[in-house]
């Protein structure tokens, strides 16, 4: 993909006054993806940081129409919007569901899987900040091994992160992509592409979160980049079953280099209780996944 900052839609869809934290990765991602989706978009969101970002009634900083829904029902809500628009013969609106990892990986997986199986015409976005941040940084099934959360306060999380992207891949979707606000052009271009495709499109955004991950707010981009450079996060897209690495992950693949995960882990307070065994297990997990994606990647 050609990185070109001048191509990006100049219009802003989030006005000043969002209620998200300083340095929030989600907010950055949201800003760029709304630019890519442009006008004629309807959003639906569950309880989450994103819901808080949208502000308190009767004021919102977001200029895109948005329907709040309950925690487990984001994808079903998008199904309803899509069905309603189809019944009213309004086919040109892009329907977008966007939820955190908590509602996507955990309670919302049923409605997401259902909507994806029906190939509902919508874009589902999971912004993955690896925990229930809105309710105070509790563990979700997206929290990585060894991370401290408010519900794994002493022993840290004992289980690996669930590979939801693989689960979504098993739904045989027309388009699936992973991306990160640390690479806004990668993110932007994937959303421009997703908008053009019909059917269920799944977008996974790794969204660094300063208070939840316990790093200084100025480091969001740095942490986001380290996640990719250590192979914790792999940037790719799958279109019609063909997997392609993109952006930094693609250049890493051709140069064959990735950094040890300690580079990523040591900069975040959430990993401060991680044991050496956990670190080694996590490194082995990352290496295995990286090799797996290298093998599968085409062109």
């Amino acid at each position, binding site marked *: 993909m050609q990185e070109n900052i001048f191509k990006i839609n100049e219009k802003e869809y989030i006005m000043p006054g969002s209620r998200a934290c300083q340095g929030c990765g989600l907010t950055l991602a949201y800003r760029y993806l709304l630019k890519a989706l442009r*006008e*004629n*978009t*309807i959003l*639906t969101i569950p309880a989450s940081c994103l*819901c*808080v970002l*949208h*502000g*308190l*009634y*009767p*004021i*919102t900083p*977001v*200029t*895109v*129409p*948005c*329907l*709040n*829904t*309950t925690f*487990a*029902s984001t994808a*079903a*809500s*998008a*199904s*309803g*919007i899509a*069905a*309603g*628009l*189809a*019944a*009213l013969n*309004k086919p040109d*609106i892009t329907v977008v569901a966007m939820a955190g990892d908590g509602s996507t990986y955990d309670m919302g997986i*049923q*409605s997401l*899987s*259902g909507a994806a*199986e*029906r190939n509902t015409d919508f874009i589902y976005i999971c912004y993955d900040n690896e925990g229930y941040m809105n309710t105070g940084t509790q563990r979700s099934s997206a929290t990585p091994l060894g991370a401290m959360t408010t519900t794994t306060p002493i022993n840290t999380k004992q289980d690996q992160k669930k590979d939801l992207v693989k689960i979504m891949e098993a739904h045989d979707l027309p388009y699936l992509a992973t991306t990160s606000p640390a690479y806004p052009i990668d993110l932007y271009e994937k959303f421009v592409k997703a908008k053009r495709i019909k059917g269920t499109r799944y977008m996974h955004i790794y969204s660094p979160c300063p208070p939840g991950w316990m790093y200084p707010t100025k480091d969001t981009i740095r942490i986001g980049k380290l996640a990719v450079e250590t192979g914790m996060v792999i940037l790719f897209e799958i279109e019609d079953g063909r997997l392609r690495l993109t952006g930094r992950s693609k250049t890493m693949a051709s140069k064959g280099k990735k950094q040890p995960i300690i580079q990523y882990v040591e900069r975040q307070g959430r990993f401060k209780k991680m044991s050496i065994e956990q670190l080694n297990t996590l490194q082995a997990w990352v290496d295995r996944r990286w090799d797996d994606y290298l093998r599968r990647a085409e062109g």
Partner: protein
Amino acid sequence: MAAYPITPQASLSEILSRYVEGGELKAEYVRVEGEHSAMTVCISASTVGARVFTATSSNGLLYMHEQLHWAAGSRLPIVMCCVNRGVGAPWSIFNDQQDSVSQRDTGWIQIYCRDNQEIIDTIIQAYRIAEQVYIPVMVCYDGFVLSHTMMPVHIPDHEQVRRFLPPYKPHTILSPEDPRTINSVLFPWRRENPQGVLCDGYMEMRYKLQAAFETARTVIADTNRAFAESFGRDHGGLIWTYMTDDAELVMTGMGSIAAEAVAATDMLRAEGIKAGVVGIRVFRPFPKDDVVRAFSRAHAILAFEKAISYGYEGALCSDLKAALYGTGVNAPIHNYVAGLGGRDVKPRELAEAGRNAVALLEGQTMKNETRWLNCYTG
């Protein structure tokens, strides 16, 4: 339209599928993966401006519980059939009304039907009511007793229904033409919008829902009247009555059990007992003034219910007592829990309860206790 199959609602979701696939019904049918999603689809489709329908029973209704509140809080005119069935555990596929009665406080209008003709007519009325007051309507009818029995039914004419039911106008529409965030977070207090206008807080919104329920009583009665004028069938507005003019013993209930009470009344009348029936057609909004009028001459009231509020009595009985309190209607109310999990309720059993009540009337004081009809209690 979205539905998820559950006995005894299942045949409804199957037949609607056939209508849609066969092109007889112009609709988008979303075959969701569960009832929580079925109600969500209805909520969101209604928010973009479509008219919606779903149906469920029992555990399916309970699985929707969170979304029932969400639908009412969003003030959406959703219409849903609840084909009443007992609730597990243990499993029972058979009829009682614990499912919908336990959802009484979710902010839905609840209408209970007593025969198949009333079901189809009430669904049409339900849209007209819901779309005037912006409250979702649950049309309840007894599983198997009504859902799996047949009677000749007049299918209302398409054009006539169209005339009776003007197109749906949403109060707020989710559209890129007028972007807004719907159902965002609220603080406990009222808050100004950017133009300086003080807007509702959570509590004002709740008050408005309650106020709409107050208005709904008139709307329901008017809708029934208008329906009777157009279609020639009058099912009663909030309540219906049978031989209550001179009745001393008045039986009451919701749905098919009230229809059984009509047969019991005929038996009692044949024995010279002045019996009558008040059928509670609308449970929410509770027809408080109507019941006071209907029971004003009663010497004894028998409330038969296919549900119970555990730890107290039937919810209908409590509501009746509350409505009569301080009105001068002091007839003793005998509460009977009946027909749970499909236990057969026969008119002669209701008549027997009536005879006992008459015997009790002779100078004895009433004990405030709930009796279990046709149930082995040890």
